[in-house]
């Protein structure tokens, strides 16, 4: 391709890249999965892939700040957990017909619970980010880790909501009879729909001026300051947005697992989400989705072969980091230039 004078050529003139094919294939496969699984008599896969979709959403939100923004946040599971607990606690109060904080009635309405989950997770992310984003490198990792641990212990201490044992979901989120999340297939398509919509939004965000600031700050923070960008505020907004989306993933997770527990926000969970992003290929939005798939399916398959699957998975992760750092999706060639 010798045309170097335009930043982007008209789409029709460019052959679709390997990545585009991969995305198309993935989309088709995801859409067709429930009927295919039912036809094959394996409805279990619908639940399994639903779980993958939920973590794919969380991983995608982490990619915004990690892959595009360069912020190695070791507390992302905390935002997911908070979102899950909002749904769980509201459902609990709704079923018990008691008041939260003596003021608010519970509810199982998704119209209320899900946005509230996003709001709470987002506000937490705002607070955590405000403190943490003043630090860099290992200090940032440690501070986010510390906050995650504090959140974990906080929820463990909530005896009223099950403490260490967690809380069963009293009722799945309802959406005014539009859809029943108790039905596996309905839940699957809701999760897929959310993933696609959020994915498209994040795609616009990462290519926008805001996205450019994030990426520039990741590449060379010092230079960004010297061309006139007060980087902190942009990072804080990205961090908050990522937290809110993770909260939404948490709301979905509560419904998928029918259960919320502090284990959902343990620091090792945050580590797993980071692994998903890297495994798939960070900085690509699709990569984390692929990564979630590979991670969770691998976990499923390997634990079927041997209960000691982590002894295999650990070295595999090590090898990926050494040899395939750009992740699986990252291995596919993209279009030339940026």
């Amino acid at each position, binding site marked *: 391709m010798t045309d170097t004078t335009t930043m982007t050529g008209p789409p029709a003139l460019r052959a679709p890249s390997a990545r585009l094919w991969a995305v198309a294939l993935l989309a088709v496969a995801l859409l067709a999965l429930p009927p295919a699984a039912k036809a094959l008599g394996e409805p279990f896969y619908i639940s399994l892939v639903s779980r993958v979709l939920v973590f794919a959403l969380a991983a995608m939100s982490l990619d915004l700040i990690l892959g595009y923004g360069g912020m*190695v946040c070791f507390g992302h599971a905390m935002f997911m957990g908070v979102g899950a607990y909002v749904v769980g606690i509201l459902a609990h109060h709704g079923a018990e017909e008691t008041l939260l904080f003596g003021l608010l009635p519970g509810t199982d309405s998704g119209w209320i619970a899900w946005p509230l989950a996003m709001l709470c997770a987002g506000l937490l992310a705002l607070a955590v980010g405000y403190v943490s984003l003043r630090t860099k490198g290992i200090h940032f990792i440690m501070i986010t880790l*510390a906050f995650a*641990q504090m959140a974990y*212990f906080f929820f463990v201490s909530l005896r009223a909501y099950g403490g260490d044992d967690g809380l069963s979901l009293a009722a799945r989120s309802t959406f005014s009879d539009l859809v029943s999340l108790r039905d596996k297939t309905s839940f699957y398509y809701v999760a897929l729909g959310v993933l696609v919509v959020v994915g498209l939004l994040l795609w616009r965000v990462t290519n926008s001026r805001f996205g450019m600031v994030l990426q520039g700050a990741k590449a060379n923070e010092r230079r960004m300051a010297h061309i006139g960008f007060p980087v902190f505020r942009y990072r804080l907004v990205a961090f908050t947005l990522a937290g809110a989306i993770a909260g939404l993933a948490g709301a979905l997770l509560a419904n998928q697992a029918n259960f919320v527990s502090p284990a959902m926000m343990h620091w*090792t969970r945050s580590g797993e989400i980071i692994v998903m992003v890297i495994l798939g290929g960070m900085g690509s939005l699709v990569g984390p989705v692929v990564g979630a798939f590979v991670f969770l399916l691998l976990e499923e398959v390997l634990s079927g072969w041997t209960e000691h699957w982590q*002894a295999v998975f650990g070295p595999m992760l090590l090898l990926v980091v050494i040899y395939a750092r750009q992740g699986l999706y990252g291995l596919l060639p993209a279009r030339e230039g940026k």
Partner: protein
Amino acid sequence: MSAMLIAEQTLNGLQLGTMLFLMAAGLTLVFGIMNLINLAHGSLYMLGAYFAATLFRLTGSFLLAGAGAFVGVLALGMLLELAVLRRFYARDHLDQVLATFGLILFFNEMARIVWGPQAVFMPLPEALEGTVALIPGAPYPLYRLVTIGVGMAVAVALYLLIGRTRAGMLIRAGASNRTMVEALGVNIRVLYTAVFGLGAALAALAGTMAGPLLSVQVGMGDGVLILTLVVIVIGGIGSIRGAFIAALLVGLSDTFGRMLLPAAVAEMTIYILMAAILTWRPQGLFPAHD
């Protein structure tokens, strides 16, 4: 709240602190000199405990068990450094975190395969059973006092090593300015392997001493790892002195926190401490780097 209770908790805090120091010394040196975050440090602690427990059961001698664990993990650590970790010195921290995270999974599972999922019991060495009344009327377990003693002895030994020997001088220089030391033509690779081995051995020592006190089981290193990371961040990366002070600070804070505060808040004590210190001194108390 009696003076005896305070004295007892102070000693407990010192015991936790000195154990954390053994862990933190190695981790902070490796981070300061080789710029490597090694999350598998907790696994070395765990393996030290397992080796010691097994050797103790086989030989009946605590001393032999401790020495065996020390040497065994020293060798394992150096092997790990040579085979795997040295290719990560030039890589960014995220890669190191991911890779060593993978190592944690591997070591935890290998321990489960070799020793099983149940905790391994390690008894107190006979000679160190019993109590000592440091304060008349307030008996304190002899073993814990010995643990404090060992930790302090190591602190003194490290102080002498780092401050008074040529090797120590290289270590200090490397922690302060790695590139310079390389440029001076020192055989840096040998230094790195030695430092890593030393850190691993100290972690094994911590694990050995902890064996009779805590349960020796898979995953015992994970919690200690977080505490150790908090210690080195508070103390300042690359500084042994910082690690020592921070370890005692964390040990005492955690112990008194649990005594004085309700359960949930007590868990958070050290993180609040870390956040407070980082706000005041973002580089930690005694940062080694220029």
